[in-house]
């Protein structure tokens, strides 16, 4: 922290607040990624970090470098726009792939089940037991 000595009070407070709140929101999203049960619930959680967390931390960086140098620094808007527009696209393609894989596996399981000759296990209970070819 060599350059922070000449920073005045208001930009320092704003930078600190935005930085800590952005990191906390990102951690909440990551905890959701850790704790939710199914994949389709889990895919929602990290978007909290990619939208609010990225926006807060990039705004903190903009405030800090604008207060350090002369004039406003707006580079970080590039990161905000890029991440907020690209994350839903990637996750939508990923959910498409996951739906395709789930459907493929369920169809395969159904076909295996039908090949064994057991259409409904409840109907099979009263029938005389015949030795199944293993």
């Amino acid at each position, binding site marked *: 922290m*060599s350059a922070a000595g000449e920073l005045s009070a208001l930009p320092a407070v704003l930078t600190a607040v935005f930085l800590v709140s952005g990191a906390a929101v*990102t951690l909440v999203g990551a905890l959701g990624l850790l704790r939710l049960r199914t994949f389709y619930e889990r895919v929602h959680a990290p978007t909290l970090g990619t939208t609010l967390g990225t926006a807060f931390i990039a705004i903190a960086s903009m405030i800090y470098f604008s207060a350090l140098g002369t004039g406003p620094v707006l580079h970080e808007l590039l990161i905000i726009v890029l991440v907020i527009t690209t994350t839903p696209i990637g*996750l939508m393609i990923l959910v498409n792939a996951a739906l395709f894989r789930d459907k493929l596996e369920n169809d395969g399981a159904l076909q295996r089940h039908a090949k064994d000759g057991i259409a409904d296990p409840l109907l099979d209970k009263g029938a005389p037991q015949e030795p199944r070819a293993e």
Partner: protein
Amino acid sequence: MSMMLAWSVTTAQILLGCAMACAAFRILRGPRAQDRVVGFDSLYVNAMLLLLTFGIRTGSTLYFEAALIIALLGFVSTVVLAKFLLRGEVIE
């Protein structure tokens, strides 16, 4: 005042490190491939935010370009991994 800023930067780094640990756990322990891809997506976004925080700590703008490159290449790699899960090959 700079003392408070230093402490807030350290706190943000610790929180982002915990978030990266959660994402890495999901990559290692994800039951299926798509869980690992979601964990990877979260991991690179957290790494990009950590690089922005490093830039605030050191006061240099060099970390910004690295964060921008991570954001670009991370999106491309997520799309390519999803495409691979969907089709079994990347370029048809």
